[in-house]
């Protein structure tokens, strides 16, 4: 496995409950439960370290989530959420990524990152990449698109997909993440049927297995790219 660390980001937490189902199910509880299930599966079967941006019921800011991910030097970042719609019949999973035009308020191309030479012991210098916090995701957009495509294909064989399964939205959690990153909306809590489904072991296992297989496949793709 080229990736020894994976970051799973359970959406919301603490006083930020996220969305709430008609029967009262809170998004923050389900995202944490599934994140913990994914962690157990990946660590036991792949031997990778899974970093959760929160492992209990507490609020974590967007920048904190990105910092946790960036400091872990992980191979990929996956944020878990549950959705809501004005139409209670809306259903299915969606994978969301950023595109170039969605970064930095859509102000055209993002300025390239810089490298600087810093003095090092022995009179030498070492080059350090300066990555802009607000647009760190810019250098990973192609890889994030590949990650989104892989995840969508893996989900499609296991759970119901939305009528618009792949989306490009200006999501707040993604711009500062310095690695391939996507958001997974696992189901609609505003749909009574899906609200019941997301609490079941079988659904949570299906999501965890789809993420497991995505990590395996995406890692293989990365390995292939590196060997070229």
């Amino acid at each position, binding site marked *: 496995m080229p990736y020894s660390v994976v970051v799973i980001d359970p959406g919301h937490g603490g006083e930020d409950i996220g969305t*709430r189902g008609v029967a009262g199910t809170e998004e923050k509880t389900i995202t944490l439960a599934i994140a913990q299930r994914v962690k157990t599966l990946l660590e036991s079967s792949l031997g990778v370290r899974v970093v959760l941006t929160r492992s209990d019921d507490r609020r974590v800011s967007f920048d904190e989530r990105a910092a946790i991910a960036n400091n872990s030097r992980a191979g990929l970042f996956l944020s878990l959420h549950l959705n809501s719609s004005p139409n209670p019949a809306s259903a299915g999973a969606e994978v969301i990524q950023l595109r170039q035009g969605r970064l930095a308020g859509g102000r055209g191309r993002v300025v390239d990152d810089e490298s600087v030479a810093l003095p090092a012991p022995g009179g030498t210098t070492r080059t350090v990449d300066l990555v802009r916090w607000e647009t760190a995701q810019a250098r990973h957009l192609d890889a994030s698109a590949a990650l989104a495509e892989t995840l969508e294909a893996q989900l499609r064989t296991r759970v119901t997909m*939305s009528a618009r399964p792949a989306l490009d939205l200006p999501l707040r959690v993604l711009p500062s993440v310095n690695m391939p990153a996507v958001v997974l909306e696992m189901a609609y809590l505003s749909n009574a049927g899906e609200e019941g489904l997301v609490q079941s072991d079988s659904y949570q296992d299906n999501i965890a297995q789809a993420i497991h297989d995505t990590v395996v496949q995406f890692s293989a793709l990365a390995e292939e790219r590196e060997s070229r």
Partner: protein
Amino acid sequence: MTRRWLVLAGVAVVLLVLAGWAVSRALRPSEAPAEASAANTELVPPTAGVRHITATLFYAGSDGQSLVPVRQEIVLAEGVVPQGREIVSAQLLRPRSPYVSVIPEGTRLRAFYVTDRGDAFVDLSPEVTSRHPGGSTAELLTVYALVNSVTANLPTIRRVQILIDGQEADTLAGHIDLRNPLERDTSIIKRP
């Protein structure tokens, strides 16, 4: 005799105090129109004789994942800023049946500004976030109903930034990035 005069004087003083209270209450400035127009009131066309424009407002599509454009008569105002206020205020109101609003009930327009660069700032009351149902789809519809209604009806406005209670905000409900002004997005619009 003195006692009767004292009683009468007392009654007169009480009456004067009551009259003063009533007059001061009647003269107190009324609340701003935007404050008074809560989103749970229904949008009605301007009365006959009032000059109006036909604006495009946006409501939930039948699939719950898109916006539908709806032509609606709203009051004509002189200038971009007053007209912007009328457009956003109309967008916040409950639409006529069968359309469904994507704006949380009770959301009010606090202020509407325009910069020289063609960016509009829409300042909304806290209900837009405190009463939001959450979920990226519902949030996307709320944000772009506002952004699209302003940009579709005011050609000089290119981008819209949403403020909450006078402050810049990260998001409405944890998903859509509001830190920068947003351009019009027609990808989520479906014709009815």
